[in-house]
């Protein structure tokens, strides 16, 4: 009994403080979570609009679409962008893959038949400043805009202004460049298969 009393005497402040701080954090989370989620939603909408400038509204048409991967289970939500008249402009989805310094999360856009990609925007990345973080710059991202559906290849040299399946790597950031190409190759085919199965696009 004296051991228990000793333990309580030593640790009561720690326990009470933990409960108190837990309450503070729960209150802060409860008060701020709606705003944080609204910010994340607004960011997603902004990025989707950058990829589909004619689209006004975006809605999730497929939740937890399965992405084919040899090592782990990946799912993503597929958003459909429509204009003011309700016509489908294209599709966008969040894709993720390992980069040089950590995971890279991007939003990939494609036209309404998924025959042509409309590009990508970076959601989160911790790539090296001045090197890998150049995946956020327009000159690299523009190579994906208008690229045809199919397996993309990374090239060390080439003309980045030519829009085809060949993507010219960022000098000094081959791993980051390869990571983005690999993300496209992992996700785009699976997303297209899902949309064909859902009857949202023609499979031919």
């Amino acid at each position, binding site marked *: 009994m004296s051991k228990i009393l000793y333990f309580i005497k030593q640790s009561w*402040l720690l326990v009470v403080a933990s409960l108190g701080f837990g309450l*503070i954090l729960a209150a802060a989370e409860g008060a*701020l979570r709606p705003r*944080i989620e609204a*910010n994340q939603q607004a960011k997603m909408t902004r990025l989707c609009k950058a990829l589909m400038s004619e689209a006004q509204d975006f809605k999730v048409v497929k939740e937890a679409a399965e992405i084919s991967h040899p090592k782990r289970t990946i799912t993503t939500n597929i958003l459909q962008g429509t204009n003011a008249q309700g016509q489908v402009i294209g599709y966008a989805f969040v894709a993720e893959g390992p980069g040089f310094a950590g995971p890279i999360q991007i939003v990939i856009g494609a036209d309404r038949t998924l025959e042509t990609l409309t590009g990508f925007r970076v959601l989160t990345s911790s790539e090296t400043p001045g090197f890998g973080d150049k995946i956020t710059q327009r000159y690299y991202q523009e190579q994906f805009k208008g690229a045809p559906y199919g397996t993309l290849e990374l090239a060390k040299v080439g003309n980045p202004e030519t829009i085809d399946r060949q993507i010219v790597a960022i000098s000094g950031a081959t791993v980051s460049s390869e990571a983005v190409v690999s993300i496209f190759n992992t996700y785009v085919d699976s997303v297209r298969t899902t949309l064909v199965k859902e009857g949202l696009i023609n499979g031919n």
Partner: protein
Amino acid sequence: MATEVTKAPALGPTFLAGLWKENPVFRLLLGMCPTLAVTAAMKPALTMGCCVIFVLFCSNIVVCLMRTLLKPHLRILMFTLTIATFVTVADMLLKAFMPDMSEALGPYVPLIIVNCIIICRAEACASKNGLIVSIMDALGMGLGFTGTLCVLAAIREILSTGCVFGVPVLKTIDAGGWFTPWAGMGMPVGAFVTLGLLLALVNIISKKKA
């Protein structure tokens, strides 16, 4: 036998100490990591400074209020628990009200938990003094840290981009002016060089004053 009566520190000198005499970056050499990492531009530097002021202020108050109840062997644990709570609140506030800044600062906001300035002030001041003294110490140290970050960031941003807060102050060659931006100042090497030179300057000024 005469008993020693320890006088509470004066409020004014306590506050001012954090600004110069005991500046956390230039004199105590604490908080070096965020000092180097977030001072490429003014906006993130000022945001980081404000976060540190908030955490210092709140943690000093809480540590001061529970100082008579602290067990010596558990005090560091209590300090860390307190600091971590307020850093988490600060992080959530940033994500809610300044999401772009939250992204720009990235992992450096959660890393405030291990910023030595905060745990140092909890140990050296808040756990040994009254509430008003602890508050003045927190504000002085916080403002000293923020001021230092801003000075460093102003120098680096002007030299690396010709702008302050994104507003052009030096006309660059691309804009038809004379100034060639020093890209290195926006990189870690610029941070180390600028901080080193400022430390040397502070030491020279301190020596002359002495």
